């Protein structure tokens, strides 16, 4: 394996519901190198919680997250675009940069660069409400890339798009990843779509139902672009479903 980018060490997390405490993550340990990892699991198993812990949105009860970099920046592609309706597209992308000390002009310049990477250079002065769902999700992606993160986290990023738009965006993300035009060295994607995970990722991590533990790790190892109808793809798919339903 290449050198590690992210280490998840013995992470556990419980949520309190009234008087009872509900354990969602139970001792998750995972090494992520310079690779694309998809986390799969039954719905409600705590996949998203794990992603939120990696992003620093929540603290684990036990264990820790180590990002092996001097500048441990992360980009987060939210399930919904979460754009601020009162800012233009370019300002939405530039805001995280500005808030961290960059001047507006420099921040907008960088934002434009990443907007053109996702094909939105012509829409920089539009407001979010003027864009389609797919375009808004592209802004979400541009914002995540513009902070020049070393880890890109994605929370079911294609689940709220129509099938055609979702497929186009999957290919675009894969192109950006394989061509290595961004600062991203590792991607962690949470999904419940098995087909999408095998199509995109280098490595699949399958979690158990709540409380989530790591049930299995599968290296995909198929050459890209992947053919969903190939025998190897189908075989892998069967194997994943078997692990998920076990």
């Amino acid at each position, binding site marked *: 394996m290449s050198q590690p980018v992210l280490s998840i060490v013995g992470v556990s997390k419980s949520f309190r519901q009234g008087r009872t405490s509900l354990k969602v993550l139970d001792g998750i340990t995972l090494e992520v190198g310079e690779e694309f990892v998809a986390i799969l699991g039954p719905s409600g198993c705590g996949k998203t919680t794990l992603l*939120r812990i990696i*992003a*620093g*949105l929540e603290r684990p009860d036990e264990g820790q997250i180590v990002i092996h970099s001097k500048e441990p920046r*992360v980009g*987060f592609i*939210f399930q*919904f675009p*979460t754009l*601020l309706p*009162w*800012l233009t597209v370019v300002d939405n992308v530039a*805001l*995280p940069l*500005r*808030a*961290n*000390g960059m001047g*507006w002009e420099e921040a907008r310049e960088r934002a434009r660069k990443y907007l053109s990477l996702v094909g939105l250079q012509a829409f920089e002065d539009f407001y979010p409400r003027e864009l389609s769902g797919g375009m808004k999700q592209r802004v979400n992606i541009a*914002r995540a890339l513009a*902070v020049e993160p070393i880890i890109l986290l994605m929370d079911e990023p294609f689940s709220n798009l129509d099938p055609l738009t979702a497929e186009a965006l999957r290919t675009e993300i894969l192109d950006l990843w394989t061509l290595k035009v961004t600062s991203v060295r590792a991607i962690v994607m949470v999904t419940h779509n098995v087909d999408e995970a095998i199509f995109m990722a280098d490595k699949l991590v399958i979690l158990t139902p709540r409380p989530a533990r790591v049930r299995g790790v599968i290296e995909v190892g198929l050459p890209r672009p992947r053919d969903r109808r190939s025998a190897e793809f189908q075989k892998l798919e069967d194997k994943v479903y078997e692990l998920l339903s076990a």
Partner: protein
Amino acid sequence: MLPPLLVAALASTLRMLSAYVLSVLTALVAGVAMARSRAVESVLLPVLDILQSIPILGFFPAALLFFVSALPRGWGQEVAAVFLIFTSQVWNLIFGVYSSVKSLDPSLFDMAKVYRMGRAATFFYVCVPAARNSLIANSLISWAGGWFFLTSSEVISMGSEEYRLVGLGTYIVEAFERGDTVSFGLGMAVLVSIIMATYLLVWNAAAQQALGRRLPSLGPAYEALRDLVSKLWGALGDALVGLSSRLRVPRYAWRAVGAALAAYLAAELALLISGSGGLGAGGLLPTLAAVLAALPVSLARVAAVVALSAALSLAAAYACYRSERAGPAVILAGEVLASIPAILWWPLLAGLAARRPYGPYVVSGVIFLQGSLWYLFFNLMVYGLASLRREVEEMASVYRVRGWWYLRCVFVPFLMPSLAAGALSAWGGAWNASIAAEYVDLGGQAIDLGGVGALMSKLASSGDYAGVTASALLLSLTIVLFNKTFWRRLFKYVEERYGGEVE
């Protein structure tokens, strides 16, 4: 030399403006802090709940004493006046900011956290824009509330001493006392023009643009003002965001600032109470007993006023709703009437009060209505009418549900939630107005209608601050008791029965 009337008008407008700016800034900081921090919320929410429904005028002598003694002469009264106007504007603004930030999609705050936006950037780019519309809607009410208290803040008697600040309120009251009808009329005309101009040029235009409500307004001036304000605000935000990204204030520093602020306020409050003579002092018991004895009559008046306000507001809302042409006129008339200062009604209606035996009651009723009607009126106009659904109107017209049945089964039920919210504010407002409505001293000719308000007015003008503060506290306690029992139940009922979406 500028003519005195112009100076007075400028001074009053400036006073209003500074109080308003102070109110908006306070509302933003307090509202956002409440919505974002559970600790701040658990402390401030009940405190504000009490503050907004207590008779502020009753506490005014104590606050005035505090400012006058703490600040150099001349400044004390000025600051006290701005403070009184502030207290009449700020509460609904705070609640507006609080509820709009609280109802924001929480994933926006996740976004801000993931990208380490920090408090300043989250405040300026996420919270404040989200609160903008509710600030505008509430400003319609607050601006009128401020004018309503203007004269009370400019002409203040403290025992034997009387302070008069330069301003329109003082100008009009003095003209009346001299019997100078021309100056009196001129002063009133200038006052009404300023009020109308600010509504037409600023508030209504803002509400029309931001909320899409059709209100009488003139646009261009507002657009220039809006651009100026957003430029200033943008520059301020940019400077603070730039600064905080370089400083990276740690978490505990914010907590320390918050704790220090809370400690300071508590200390000031303690000082205020001890400064006003101490609550445990002897001689207060008879006063408190008198307050208790006077409560029922005031309570009956306040209840009647709230009921009348609700009926009048519903009628106005229905007129507005039925007629495209009457609507704007009704709203503008409401805005001007709502803004006419409380104690100006006495001189305006003095003739009536003196000539007829029931005169004083009519005048008192007008002042009571002034203090409470408008909360209901604006709540229905701004929020209530907006909640009527087009589909339901179409349904009603298809099935010919008209007249009484339309009112009973469609119109009033849809307005119920905003009617209840407005009624609660109107109830607090009526108690506050009782101090000005039940007793007035018009150049030696005193009209005393009895009740808690009259009692407190008399205590204030005789310089018994301990008595005023103690009775204001007792009255506040009673009001809060009602809020927690009667109003809470009413809200629950209205929420369950009328709060749902159209299925």
